């Protein structure tokens, strides 16, 4: 059964690799929907946990697939899912990269570059929507998210100091029996 699950995960990652414009955030909606609702590899809360870890970890957000692979079938799952998410896009880049570089001043190439932004925006919001829905935030958590958005939009603070502050605060709240 574990092998079937791993195979399904790999077959999910390969096409996603080829449409992961800008990286991990654009494919989160599909990862959540497929691994939780369709393939039943993870429960909703489990996905939210892995999402939280991947957002706190260094490196590309795409590495959430390594966490999912690890949950599904250990070290091999993590390795194969990682290869499945990075190799297809890398091959495409190696094949099309120089072609794109030669023709990047043509009207169509310029249009295609600008055309990616709206699609990426739609996908990022879809990902936020999918995770937000499955996370079932409490009022306190919703307030934390809104506060974090306000800080990130209005100050130059990056996400890492916020992760530290919120992580420690939630730990203390939990010790105090409040979260």
């Amino acid at each position, binding site marked *: 059964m574990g092998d079937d699950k791993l195979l399904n995960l790999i077959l999910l990652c390969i096409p996603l690799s080829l449409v992961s414009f800008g990286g991990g955030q654009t494919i989160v909606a599909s990862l959540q929907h497929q691994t939780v609702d369709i393939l039943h590899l993870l429960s909703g809360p489990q996905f939210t946990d892995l999402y939280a870890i991947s957002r706190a970890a260094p490196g590309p957000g795409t590495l959430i697939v390594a966490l999912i692979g690890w949950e599904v079938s250990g070290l091999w799952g993590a390795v194969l899912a990682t290869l499945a998410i990075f190799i297809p*896009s890398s091959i495409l880049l190696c094949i099309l990269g120089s072609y794109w570089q030669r023709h990047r001043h043509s009207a169509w190439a310029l249009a295609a570059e600008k055309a990616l932004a709206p699609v990426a925006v739609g996908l990022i919001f879809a990902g936020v929507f999918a995770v937000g829905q499955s996370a079932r935030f409490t009022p306190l958590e919703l307030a934390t998210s809104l506060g974090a958005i306000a800080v990130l939009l209005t100050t130059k603070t990056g996400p890492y100091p916020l992760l530290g502050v919120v992580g420690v605060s939630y730990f203390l709240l939990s010790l105090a029996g409040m979260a």
Partner: protein
Amino acid sequence: MDKPVGDIGMEREENVTSLALLASFLRLGASSFGGGMAGWTHREIVERRGWLTDDEFLKTLTVAQIMPGANPVNLAVYIGLKLRGVTGACLALFGMVLPAFAVILAMSVTYQQLKSHPEAQAVLRGLACVGIASSLTMGIKTARRLKGHALPILMAVAVFLMVGVMRWSLVAVVAGAIPVSAAATFWIEREKSRG
């Protein structure tokens, strides 16, 4: 010896050993905490190693950003390809991903050990809040690049509804949306240039 500008140099291959390439990208992979990777890569590849000129680096960066895949990884793979062919691309990919992969696995093991503790659950919920907030912020910042043009905004909303709310296949939606979006952009640009 004069080298043609704009022709990223296979002719430099002899100067770049596989070991040096791997070392550079392992170093970059290990410093990939929290973004700004294009800057780090520029410092290592252009300033420290002198493997690419500024101009070559910028062209490489453009390609890395436009193609699917995580931008820092794409940048590494494409630089590796240009400097050492397919071997270079593989080494760069390996070097760039391995450190982050090792860290995330260590975090995963820790998570397995601690997940039954209520405190660990609380911390993860807190991190998820910040994670979502930072994704949403990224979405808002990218959306600002649409600059209030009606067609691109409509496109973004349509993609959101199809993938997020109706849960259609993301791959199919993207495959359909990119040509439509490119055609719309092409049309907007042409109207603009006609004044």
